[in-house]
């Protein structure tokens, strides 16, 4: 169904489904039925060859909360310890496997996913209410990470060239760090955990994966893919669980690397905990952190609103704004602010709020009841502090729906303008000019994504130079980074600057080692 890639070929992105074709759309219903027939999925704690099933965690369909998607075990402290213990031995064996063989496993896992693309996307539709196009893109991204890091690890194994002087040989190589704890979110339920795990495995580390409690079934499929492709059971363990399991994992002295994607408070906690060196720990832990954002799109007076409006609306509202890259503030030049506000509000009113399985849906429900309450709280705050220009619409009453909301005239300092909301709420602010907008962006603690709509090349140059964000998008939407094309990750409090899907990412999972050998014997260079 989908063309397989061979390990020797150059990397290309897995093409997303061409859903504009009726014949492609027609295949989705079957995939959904196939998945529905196996629900609920049992997700065990899976350590080495041992599995323990459990009912402690339930994941439910956010659009139909009575539908149980997964029944998962909830890993306790003992299982965390067992998983790390197993991974410690696993890391030893796996690190001895040549990079090309490790790469073959990753590419095999990509093939496994490719064969099941529609069912995997359907599972995301159910477990995370991710609409089809985005669910499909997530599965493609997971495949991309596997393929991209596989190739990257093979290249990395060759080391890097160093300066050489007569009578001396200098070699730089990269060794795996050991056990990697992967703690992942639910919003890209296959791509992100798969990407972080793939990077660790490709470079010879063993992985203990602790996925978000909202998406254990999606995580199970990743581990199944890797194991089916030949990853040794001790090289990847699955620990479904809640925050306590994650915290225990982070504090464990035998964990070397922690790859985390999630919120700022949890990220800071992890970084603090990882700084500890309890007795018995003989290394410094490294944390790879992808945290929150408060992403701004700047719109200059010369912007093409026909392009800017749809891009702003999709950046803010697709997947109900539940992407770390999503737009949450628009800073618009006062000369065109009225027109932009009117058109963005009008466009937001046309958005279809509905179930993720419906291809007409623009805005699905948010992930859970608590998220709905949080978004509603911010919407109330926005109504109190400013003016709601779109967003009083009716939403379905079953499921965790929030109306797409556009707020304006918020006073500086309003929490709506400063805190990450992670929902379908967009604030529009007038600025005097682009410089003013850059000041506002520059004063923020976050630095994840940003956008600019402007047609003067000089303006683009100016904003590029001043923008602190990890990913700046010019004259387009600010979500949808592609592996190999838009390496993704934030600066400042948005993350420690690593770029997933980029050429430097694997360096986070290895230790560089330099060997210098004297090649002189009795005055002769040999």
């Amino acid at each position, binding site marked *: 169904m989908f063309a397989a890639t061979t390990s020797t070929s150059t990397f*290309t*992105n*897995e*093409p*997303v489904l*061409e*859903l*504009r074709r*009726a014949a492609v*759309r027609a295949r989705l219903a079957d995939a959904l039925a196939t998945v529905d027939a196996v629900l609920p999925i049992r997700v065990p704690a899976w350590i080495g060859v041992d599995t323990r099933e459990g009912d402690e965690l339930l994941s439910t369909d956010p659009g139909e909360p009575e539908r149980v998607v997964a029944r998962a075990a909830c890993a306790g402290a003992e299982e965390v310890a067992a998983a790390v213990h197993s991974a410690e031995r696993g890391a030893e064996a796996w690190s001895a496997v040549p990079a090309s063989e490790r790469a073959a496993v990753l590419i095999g896992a990509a093939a496994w996913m490719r064969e099941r693309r529609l069912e995997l996307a359907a599972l995301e539709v159910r477990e995370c209410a991710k609409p*089809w*196009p985005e669910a499909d893109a997530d599965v493609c991204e997971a495949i991309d990470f596997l393929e991209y890091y596989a190739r990257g690890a093979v290249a990395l194994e060759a080391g890097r060239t160093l300066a050489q002087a007569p009578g001396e040989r200098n070699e730089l190589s990269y060794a795996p760090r050991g056990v990697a704890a992967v703690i992942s979110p639910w919003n890209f339920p296959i791509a992100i955990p798969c990407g972080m795990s793939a990077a660790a495995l490709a470079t010879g580390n063993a992985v203990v994966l602790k996925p978000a409690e909202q998406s254990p079934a999606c995580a199970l499929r990743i581990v199944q893919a890797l194991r089916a492709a030949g990853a040794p059971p001790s090289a990847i363990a699955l620990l479904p669980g809640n925050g306590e399991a994650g915290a225990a994992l982070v504090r464990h002295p035998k964990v070397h690397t922690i790859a985390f994607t999630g919120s700022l408070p949890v990220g800071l906690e992890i970084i603090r905990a990882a700084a500890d060196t309890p007795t018995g720990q003989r290394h410094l832990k490294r944390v790879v952190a992808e945290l929150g954002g408060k992403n701004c799109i700047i719109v200059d*007076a*010369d*912007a*093409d*609103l*026909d392009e800017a*409006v*749809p891009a702003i*609306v999709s950046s803010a509202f697709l997947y109900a704004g539940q992407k770390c890259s999503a737009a949450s503030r628009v800073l618009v030049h006062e*000369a065109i602010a009225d027109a932009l506000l*009117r*058109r963005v*509000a*009008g*466009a937001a*009113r*046309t958005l*279809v709020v509905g179930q993720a399985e*419906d*291809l*007409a849906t*623009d805005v699905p429900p948010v992930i859970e009841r608590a998220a709905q309450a949080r978004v509603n709280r911010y919407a109330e705050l926005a109504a109190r502090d400013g003016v709601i220009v779109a967003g009083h619409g009716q939403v379905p009453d079953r499921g965790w729906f929030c109306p797409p909301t556009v707020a304006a005239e918020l006073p500086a300092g309003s929490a709506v303008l400063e805190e990450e909301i992670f929902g379908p709420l967009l604030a529009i602010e007038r600025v005097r000019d682009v410089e003013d907008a850059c000041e506002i962006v520059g004063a923020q603690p976050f630095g994840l994504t940003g956008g600019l709509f402007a*047609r*003067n*090349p*000089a*303006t683009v140059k100016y904003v590029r130079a001043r923008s602190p964000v990890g990913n700046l998008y010019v004259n387009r939407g600010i979500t949808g980074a592609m592996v190999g094309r838009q390496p993704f990750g934030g600066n400042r409090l948005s993350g420690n600057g690593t770029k997933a899907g980029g050429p430097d990412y694997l360096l986070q999972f290895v230790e560089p080692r330099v060997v210098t050998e004297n090649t002189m014997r009795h005055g002769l260079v040999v």
Partner: protein
Amino acid sequence: MTARIVATHRTPSASGRYRPAVGSTSEQIEAEVHRVGAELADAFPSPARHPMKALDARAMELAAADLEIRAALFRFVDVVPACRSMDDLARHLAGFLDELPDGPPPVLAAIKVADTRAGRAALGAAAAAGVKHMAHRFIVGETPGTAVPVLRRLWARGIASSVDLLGEATVTEPEADAYAARCADALRSLSAATARWPERPTLERDGSGGLARANVSVKVSALTPLLRPDAPELGERDAARRLAPLLREAKALGAHVHIDTESLDSREAVLGLVLALLTQEEFRDGPSTGIVLQAYMRDSPEQLDQILEWASAHERTPPPVIRLVKGAYWDHEVAEAGQHGWPVPVFEVKAECDRNFEALTRRLLAARPTVRVAIASHNLRSVAHAIAVNRSSGADDGDLELQVLRGLGDDLQDALAARGFRVRTYCPVGDLVAGMAYLVRRLLENTSNESFLHAQASGVPLDELLAPP
């Protein structure tokens, strides 16, 4: 049903002019293509009026010769209506010229010296005037009302028109409503105005009967903000709410409504919408309606199957007009497919597109009178081919409509009218802001090395221009 065509064959054509008998072997058709092509080329007005020359000749030469300059110039044209002052305009121009890897070419270097505010204002004013002038070659007026005198003069010279209302993209419901209201208004004002025009038999009758004078081209993407490539029914349903009243209005007025085809992202919605509406009982006998088939699409033969199947299953009076074009979104389709890793839906070799255009021409002409046929092209070869095939089928010249775009096809339009062919010119109406996207698309398309107009303007000999693709 072919009886009707045969009937027109026997009776003198509406204009009563000479129609040669043309054989149907490929040699005979090729000979006729050359004969017609040469005859039309002869009737072209003097080269000084060529559309390429209408633009600033030196800038256009530069644009065609250097891709970077072309990009800079068109990016500039594109932003002109969004500039707030002459000073702002000049700053943009300087910004684009700064981007050029080798610095601005000598003819444009003068622009860069405009370092003073007064200098920039003067430069900005000159540039704005240039762009405005250029826009007026392509856009006939700001409103249907102001366009009417232009359309009347065309009619007087034997040229029919179709009015296209330019506008900003529709992203909200009120914008869709406003566009629908403008279309309804255009239908009414054109019907009222054209009623007083003198008779032009060539333009008013073909083998299938009378032809409407008032003719409006409509874009579905402007009729709804809900076009979603992945969910065509959504946009289809919403656009139908606005298109149905327009069809009712057109039927009452005896006007023609043509629904343009846009990019592949909306194609299914557009075709689905039109076929569904026209199948409804109230529209079985009118208004006269048309759709567009794009020959650059690899699957256009199957699209035509679908259209013809529908047309013969739901026979209508008057028959639907199928406008055959190559397609205006070539770069977009190629880039979008490339960005997503999809198979490219359009031909990538120009000659393949042109050959397909000719194959579709033959099929369409053979499908009459279930459909009416309009061949829309500025390519003398494509047009002469259609005329030759039409003649070889025994039909009258008047059973084939030829269409051109205002500003690009002016010379061909004049030549066709001079030789007594039935020609219709697509006339965009709207203000400069709304028109800029249209203008830039046309300019880009026609400075492209693949374009027939470009080849013609660069002096490629007629024989080569008329050679089979």
